């Protein structure tokens, strides 16, 4: 779901830590180093990496700026080859039947079956293009805040891992506890109370 869509979902993060050295070049280098690479002609089922907001299918952070106003705007792309289970089954049974006939046996070992399946997935991975999923990111560095335009658990987890690898900064997802713990309105004493509270019964 994109930042410019008519309906968006946003997961909010606090960015913990500071970038030492030149901010723009450090971030651009991180984006470049972990930008997405094409797997269409590779025997790989899934990959993820950064991509450009304006040109998500051909990322080039050296030529395209990732800055809009005072914000860093870029995207996470997760490419996945969705090989239908029925196609895998068709190739698997055909190959297994052939192997049984060649070896004049009635059964194949577990290892042999696994090898056949892995080979089929590799073979099909080379023929099926990966479907790209693009999730936009808006990073307000000065405010230590980042908006990720998706609520999908898997996409959020991918973002958290890749962000930490790329920029050596930690993302803290904002949810009821972290929002309370990070609230500037609370004193240390209040934060201690947070650890002891339990659900309220509004009706007896």
């Amino acid at each position, binding site marked *: 779901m994109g930042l410019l869509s008519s309906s968006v979902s*946003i997961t909010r993060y606090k960015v913990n830590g500071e970038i030492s050295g030149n901010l723009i070049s450090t971030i651009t280098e991180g984006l470049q180093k972990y930008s997405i690479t094409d797997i269409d002609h590779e025997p790989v089922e899934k990959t993820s990496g950064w991509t450009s907001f304006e040109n998500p299918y051909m990322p080039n952070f050296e030529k395209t700026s990732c800055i809009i106003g005072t914000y860093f705007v870029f995207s996470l792309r997760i490419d996945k080859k969705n090989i239908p289970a029925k196609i895998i089954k068709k190739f698997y049974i055909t190959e297994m039947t052939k192997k049984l006939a060649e070896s004049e046996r009635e059964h194949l070992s577990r290892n042999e079956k696994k090898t056949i399946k892995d080979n089929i997935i590799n073979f099909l991975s080379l023929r099926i293009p990966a479907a790209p999923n693009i999730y936009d990111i808006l990073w307000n560095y000065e405010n230590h805040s980042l908006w990720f335009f998706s*609520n999908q658990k898997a996409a959020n987890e991918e973002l958290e891992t890749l962000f930490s690898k790329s920029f050596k900064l930690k993302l803290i997802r904002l949810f*009821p506890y*972290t929002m309370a713990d990070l609230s500037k309105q*609370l004193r240390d004493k209040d934060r201690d*109370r947070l650890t002891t509270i339990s659900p*309220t019964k509004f009706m007896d």
Partner: protein
Amino acid sequence: MLDISILYNRYKFLGNEFLTWLWFMIDTDKKYILSLQKDMLSFEINNRIVLENSLDNIIENITIKGDDAGLEEAKLSLQKGGVVTECNFSLKAAEYEWKFNIKGESLNISSLKTPETAKIEKKEDVDGIVLEKYYLYEKIITLVESLYDHFIQIRITNKWDKEAVPMIKNWIQS
């Protein structure tokens, strides 16, 4: 600090209580909500509310949706001990309207629809429209954060049990 997924699950209830409190505030102290943003004209529950009621370890979910749906059944669920777990809100400021969903357990914002922005006709328009969208999203995010800040300040003090909960109980029964 405990593991983040443990904290997420342990404190889900805070988000659900926040949404329940927010409905109470909309019904009883809208003036306070409107005071949070200068140009805000209205803040209402829109066309969807989800409640969860766990009685005798059986979890019952009630969804009320539709533009003309009343909240009587939702109130009935509160009377049986339910809490709000998800809600769609509408905010009006000047001649503009925002609609969005908040899920209690995560406080994530979803289905956020802002007033329309200009259309992108050429590449040079993108930056301006992104900044306009930022401003439109920020309005909702700032409001939700201010409301939650206010809620949490009450929630972790004696004020919650002594003042807020009895008032919420009265409102539920009204």
